């Protein structure tokens, strides 16, 4: 605790990136409503999205240059090297999503769309920078409420509304569970600070057990882990591509970090154990069961999907299972592995959605059966799609392989002599072998299957997709680069970690 009396200058120095984003959001909306009234829709959406990404870049530059450090009110708002890295990663992913939205024409309200994306980003930036229940709850709600609206943004499509309504109702329930869990944690410790809560918890009381389950339901929903994943396939399929990519990427990063912190700091006194055959009650067996269920259900249900977006959704459930493995290990190394995994996974997912959005603009569908001919019509795009999907499957030398490898090693090394998580790691490796089948099915459709009509071979370029095309190539390059040279991201991560634990 640096000081009990916070000063406004301290608050200002820690919150300037968020303030830059809010300012940019208002600026983007007013420019859209005032200066660009007579411009065409694609110009407006490109201009506001680029303005938004410039704002994100400015916030990231501020973090990278100034390095805002500090600890406000015993963990209400934190700044350290690790949080700075996370915030820069979240801002980079937001820039990718904004570029994906640039030039898209599914809505006339482009200014509001950019505003909501930036507001959700503000929520994420606060979420990773706090260790206080109140701030966690408020920022999760800021993030969620923006995401519900973003998911419903395609006014022409009734599917978009339907998916958003389901997402909202499930989300509301999970928020209520989270709040109920938080109220019990407050009752147990009479404090909202995670470290205070951790200091007050000794062993598992019935009240704490309910709190753990409530928090696991609330955050399990946010990270789309089974059995709280029902919203994910609908949202991935029916929401506009940039919204779906955003829900699948940046929001996952922030939610996993806060889940890790809550479990490893807040519940530190009631760990339990998930050793095969020797379960001890605590939070670890809860997370381990959710992880195992997510891996099995996600991978096996994904096999029978015919829509690529739904397939990505179920694979996201499976990936959430792998990432929960890092939670059960809860060591500094596994936190680094989690961050590396979730960031590279997000980059690959945004890339896959970018390719899909271009393909959908051309063919009007995302079904695997409509992919044949893609490799001859759009060789660059289909090569990018291959890189993204193979990275998600975990093929070397792509980033997904190293992420999985490092995550599994971190899980096994959490206690090298007894290896309590060996059964989960074996399950993860076995189910990720299953995942290769459905990823390859998509690639087979785009590369090997011959199309039924020759129309699938002629290029039907749609205007306003130049920026997403460049984005695809950039993200593919990033996935290859991070896979071939993981220390690019891992070294700063590992250097930043000792100051956290």
């Amino acid at each position, binding site marked *: 605790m640096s000081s009990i009396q916070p000063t406004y200058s301290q608050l200002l120095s820690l919150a300037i990136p968020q303030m830059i984003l809010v300012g940019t959001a208002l600026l983007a909306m007013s420019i859209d409503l005032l200066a660009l009234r007579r411009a065409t829709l694609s110009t407006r959406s490109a201009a506001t999205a680029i303005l938004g990404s410039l704002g994100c870049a400015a916030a990231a530059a501020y973090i990278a240059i100034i390095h805002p450090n500090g600890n406000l009110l015993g963990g209400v708002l934190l700044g350290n090297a690790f949080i700075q890295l996370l915030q820069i990663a979240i801002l980079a992913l937001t820039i990718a999503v904004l570029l994906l939205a640039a030039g898209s024409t599914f809505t006339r309200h482009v200014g509001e769309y950019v505003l909501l994306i930036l507001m959700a980003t503000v929520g994420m930036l606060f979420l990773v920078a706090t260790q206080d*229940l*109140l701030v966690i*709850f*408020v920022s999760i*709600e800021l993030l969620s*409420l923006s995401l*519900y*609206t973003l998911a*419903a943004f395609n*006014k022409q499509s*009734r*599917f978009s*509304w*339907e*998916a*958003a*309504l*389901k997402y*909202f*109702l499930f989300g*509301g*329930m999970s*928020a*209520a*569970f989270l*709040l*109920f869990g*938080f*109220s*019990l944690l*407050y*009752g147990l410790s*009479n*404090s*909202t600070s995670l470290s205070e809560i951790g200091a007050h918890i000794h062993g598992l009381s019935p009240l704490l057990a309910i709190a753990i389950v409530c928090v696991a339901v609330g955050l399990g929903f946010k990270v789309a882990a089974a059995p709280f994943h029902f919203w994910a*396939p*609908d949202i991935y*399929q*029916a929401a506009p591509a940039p919204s779906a990519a955003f829900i699948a990427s940046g929001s996952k990063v922030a939610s996993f970090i806060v889940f890790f912190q809550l479990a490893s700091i807040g519940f530190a006194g009631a760990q339990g154990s998930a050793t095969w055959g020797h379960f001890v009650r605590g939070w670890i067996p809860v997370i381990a069961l959710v992880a195992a269920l997510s891996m099995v259900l996600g991978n096996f249900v994904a096999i029978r*999907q*015919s*829509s690529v977006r*739904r397939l990505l959704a179920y694979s996201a459930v499976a990936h959430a299972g792998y990432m929960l493995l890092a939670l059960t290990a809860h060591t500094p190394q596994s936190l680094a592995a989690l961050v590396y995994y979730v960031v590279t996974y997000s980059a690959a997912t945004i890339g896959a959605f970018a390719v899909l959005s271009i393909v959908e603009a051309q063919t009007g569908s995302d079904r695997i059966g409509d992919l044949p001919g893609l490799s001859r019509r759009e060789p660059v795009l289909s090569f990018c799609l291959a890189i993204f999907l193979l990275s998600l499957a975990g093929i070397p030398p792509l980033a997904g392989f190293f992420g999985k490898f490092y995550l599994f090693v971190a899980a096994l090394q959490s206690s090298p002599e007894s290896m309590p998580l060996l059964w989960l790691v074996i399950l993860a490796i076995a189910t990720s072998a299953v995942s290769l089948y459905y990823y390859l099915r998509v690639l087979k459709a785009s590369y090997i299957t011959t199309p039924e009509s020759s129309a699938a071979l002629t290029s039907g370029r749609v205007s306003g997709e130049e920026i997403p095309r460049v984005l695809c190539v950039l993200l593919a390059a990033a996935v290859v680069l991070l896979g071939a040279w993981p220390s690019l991201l891992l070294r700063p991560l590992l250097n930043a970690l000792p100051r956290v634990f």
Partner: protein
Amino acid sequence: MTGLQAYLLLSSLLFAIGLAGALTRRNAILVLIGIELMLNAANINFIAFWHYGPATTYITGVMFAIFSISVAAAEAAVGLAIIVAAYRHSHTIDLDSMNSLKG
């Protein structure tokens, strides 16, 4: 039974009623009402834990309840907007008819 226990019993009951309503009702508005009940159950917890807690001079629990009430209001606004828009599209808010997305 102490006062705190009575309040916790009340809040658990409210939470359970809200959850049952949210899970069984087919009308989207009634589901939303169920969710609001669940959120208010948590608010009762916060106030009760604060009142019977060791340090009533720190108003953390009350602050949390005030924040969560305003967040619940925002949530209701967003939710009703989505429900109204869904009604304009399909002229029903019956959740059983929302079944065009499957798989």
